């Protein structure tokens, strides 16, 4: 089944969150990671991040870690299934990048 029919393409927000939790991070850390790595281009709202974390958790792609003592901040980390999905997305983006460069080519430089 083609990607666009079965919904294989991830949104940028989803993929960035998954990348952020390759290392355990709490919510604020995820927001900071994404803002820093995108040089301020992507700034996640708290409500958007909360919804995305819930959705990724339901899908089994990320999981919460047990909160450390004296900390109310829940950390999240990517699961094995999530790593698989992230690798799939990376390959998809690479294919699109190769196609785009072959067409747009020098104009992109």
């Amino acid at each position, binding site marked *: 089944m083609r990607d666009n029919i079965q919904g294989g393409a991830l949104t940028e927000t989803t993929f960035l969150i998954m990348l952020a939790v390759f290392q355990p991070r709490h919510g*604020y850390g995820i927001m900071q990671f994404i803002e820093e790595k995108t040089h301020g281009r992507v700034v996640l709202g708290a409500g958007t991040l909360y*919804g995305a974390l819930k959705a990724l958790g339901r899908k089994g792609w990320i999981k919460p870690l047990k909160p450390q003592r004296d900390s109310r901040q829940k950390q999240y980390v990517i699961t094995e299934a999530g790593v698989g999905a992230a690798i799939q997305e990376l390959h998809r983006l690479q294919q699109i990048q190769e196609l785009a460069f072959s067409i747009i080519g020098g104009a992109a430089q």
Partner: protein
Amino acid sequence: MAAKGYRLVGTTQITYDFEPCEPNAYEYRVEFAAGKQFRERDEYRQFLHSLGYKTFWKNINLNLSLGKIKVRPWAEGTGKAAFSPGSYGKELLIVEKQRDGKRFELHTGLSDRIGYYRTLRNAWIFTSFAGLVLLLAVAAGRLPKSLPAIAGGVGLALLGIVPGIDYSFVVRDFLQEKRIHE
């Protein structure tokens, strides 16, 4: 109030309590949280606290009551009926953040915004619909033809229709944008 140097410190059903602070030291956003189920509202609030935000509940009285049950057809799952004080009187969530020069928005993704504004739209349309039902009940003789009943029906119908239409356009615009961007 924040621009004038007042910080929100508490809310009751009819009041907002402030204390003096540096002007613009804090900024606030208000979220319509009545559409969320009870447990999710609590989890969301704790999540906001983990980000360093402070929150306050506030009532909006945008409900229809059947005895002690508040009815919210636009809400998700078990949020459609509120049975306890933990569920009603907490429709608005006021979120406070210390101003740090960075953008402060609760909902930034298109899909997230569409979902949020759809809930708002549905709540207002339901309000208008409730007013029409009330007027029809009066016209059909199911309710006494009294001025309060007619005024209530007209008031509800008009109160809900303008924001309902306005939010419909907002949702439509976001949906159109989503065809091209995320």
